[in-house]
């Protein structure tokens, strides 16, 4: 046993798979300790906030201000307001106005703005210029006004008695605050989803639930398959015929269709994560049962089983001691694959809207479902679905790697 374990951990496939998997498990366990926020709490008003660091604006006015004289700060600010499209439009107008094209450098923001401010005339029209174009240039002119101004912004509050604005503070363009001194900063590494929930927190909670679903489904499927396979393989005869009849029935009905039908008929109210897990397990035991049965049949005529019978051992003892250890490696491998396929089956069900009830827990499949319903993929809000896909892929990948690694150890003929 020890020897086998050591061999398994020498297989590179298994080690890589196991590392990825333990990393996922560790994250799922440790993250909630540091970020104890409830995963389904709606924090954002609005949908799909981009990933980033969110600093409270009100608190930042009250935070101590520092003056930093940094080169290029102005041009950076201007550049962030003036995009390439606007620059090209300005160039187009200026060329139309009569300035030679080679004198206009659209990358030199300050020179371009100066040229624009001195020359722009909203009443001027060139041949081929439509009214829409003219209005566009006027809008553009309005938006670039004040870009070059170095005046401070004024913060004022309304005087309750007179109703007039009273200046309380001035914010210079060289004023800075220290983010660590702002009372409220929220980092949203993966932004928010359609309901305004933190995607990362939700994703980790969903991974935990999905893994649990996978484990429960795997245990249910492996247990059913193992018991039926052992009994039908070892006893043979009528018992075998009956069990194989049921197994064949389950084989010919596509399990996913069965899964859909069962989860649909359970109804929305009954569909908790645990129920879904059991339903998935209940529909995927067939192959385990068949494989276990065929292995048991080849084992039951082995001499060591006969010898055990001759030593007067009972059927249960023989199954547990003389047959189970020989198929244990296979069962463990099947179990790992069942977990991964359980997670995938949950994702598949949830995308169809047949997953666990939506209000209680997030699962990876549900997150995909929500992202799909709110058209995150069309709107380009990648953070709502892409991390989920990566997580599912990583889980399935690591499980399959572990399975191949174990396969190479247990079936040495597959090596090389």
């Amino acid at each position, binding site marked *: 046993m020890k020897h086998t374990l050591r061999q398994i951990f020498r297989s590179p496939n298994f080690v890589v798979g196991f590392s990825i998997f333990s990393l996922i498990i560790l994250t799922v366990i440790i993250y909630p300790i540091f970020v104890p926020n409830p995963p389904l709490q709606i924090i954002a008003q609005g949908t799909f906030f981009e990933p980033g660091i969110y600093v409270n604006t009100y608190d930042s006015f009250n935070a101590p201000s520092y003056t930093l004289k940094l080169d290029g700060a102005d041009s950076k600010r201007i550049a962030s307001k003036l995009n390439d499209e606007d620059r090209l439009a300005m160039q187009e107008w200026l060329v139309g106005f009569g300035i030679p094209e080679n004198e206009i450098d659209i990358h030199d923001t300050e020179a371009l703005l100066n040229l624009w401010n001195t020359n722009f005339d909203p009443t001027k029209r060139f041949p081929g210029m439509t009214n829409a174009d003219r209005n566009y240039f006027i809008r553009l002119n309005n938006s670039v006004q004040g870009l070059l101004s170095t005046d401070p912004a004024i913060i004022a509050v309304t005087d309750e008695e007179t109703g007039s604005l009273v200046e309380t503070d001035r914010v210079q363009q060289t004023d800075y605050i220290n983010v660590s001194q702002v009372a409220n900063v929220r980092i949203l590494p993966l932004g928010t989803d359609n309901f305004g929930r933190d995607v990362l927190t939700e994703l980790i909670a969903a991974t935990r639930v999905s893994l649990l679903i996978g484990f429960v489904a795997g245990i249910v499927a492996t247990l059913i398959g193992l018991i039926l396979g052992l009994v039908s393989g070892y006893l043979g005869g009528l018992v075998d015929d009956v069990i194989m009849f049921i197994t064949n029935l389950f084989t010919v009905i596509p399990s996913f269709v069965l899964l859909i039908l069962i989860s649909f008929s359970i109804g929305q109210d009954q569909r908790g994560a645990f129920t879904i897990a059991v339903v998935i397990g209940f529909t995927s035991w067939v192959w385990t049962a068949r494989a276990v049965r065929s292995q048991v049949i080849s084992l039951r005529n082995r001499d*060591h089983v006969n010898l055990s019978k*001759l030593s007067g051992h*009972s059927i249960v003892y023989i199954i547990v001691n003389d047959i189970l250890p020989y198929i244990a490696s296979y069962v463990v491998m099947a179990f790992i694959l069942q977990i991964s396929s359980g997670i995938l089956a949950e994702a598949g069900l949830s995308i169809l809207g047949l997953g666990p009830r939506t209000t209680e827990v997030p699962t990876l499949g549900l997150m995909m479902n929500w992202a799909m319903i709110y058209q995150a993929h069309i709107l380009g809000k990648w953070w709502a679905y892409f991390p989920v896909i990566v997580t599912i892929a990583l889980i399935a990948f690591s499980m399959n790697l572990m399975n191949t690694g174990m396969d190479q150890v247990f079936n040495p003929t597959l090596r090389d």
Partner: protein
Amino acid sequence: MTLEKKLYLSAKGVSKVFGFGNQKTVAVDNVDLDLYEGEVVSIVGESGSGKTTLSKILLGLINQTEGDIYFQGVKRDISSHAKKREYWKNIQAIFQDPFSSYNTFNKIDTVLLDCINMRGGKYFPREKKIELMKEACSFVNLKFEELTNKYPFELSGGQMQRLMIARIFLLKPKILLADEPTSMIDACSRATILDELMHLRKEIGMTIIFITHDIGLAYYVSDKVCIMEKGRFVETGTADSVILTPHHAYTKRLINDVPKIHEEWDLTTV
């Protein structure tokens, strides 16, 4: 001999049919066998002759389709687990392949302890159990100290098969069914196994059914030889009479086709 020998095991018209309809194969066909106390009886047959099926029927591992088996004059009853246990106290087996005869997940001690338990020694003190195991191992020239806490796959084939004999020594059955116990073992170790088997037979007065495909080996070890072809016994008799003066054509062919050393091996008669 004036003293009538006791009839231990007898089979009357035993048949075994596998499958049904068109795929019916008769593995054992109407076999009669009488086994007297202290005899060594060989069942000789080529592969597919049904000798292993017959041995499993005699052991009670599979049920015969037809016929009856009498143990010590009484019809054998193995309908329940308890009755089977009782039967298996009297009849035990050594199988062909020592490498597959052991559960590789159990230590060697387990194999021997099982036998002590079966002989009613379940509640013996530990020292007594160890003493019994030591005695059994030394009987087959193995050292218990070297075997304890080891797994079967750490032994050589010959050692494994000797451990099987040690197991029989502990169980002390009335009948031993040896199913090709030496065919997977090198010629050098074969003599040791046979010697120990015969020694054991003297020691505990055992009756042996020896199943083999090697007619020379059958001749060497047994008092009585039964030649089996396609599920039937074609010739039965004392070893000398069957091997040296065969009557049935199949027996003649079998003996003629085995390569010999002192006599000419006639290649023209194929």
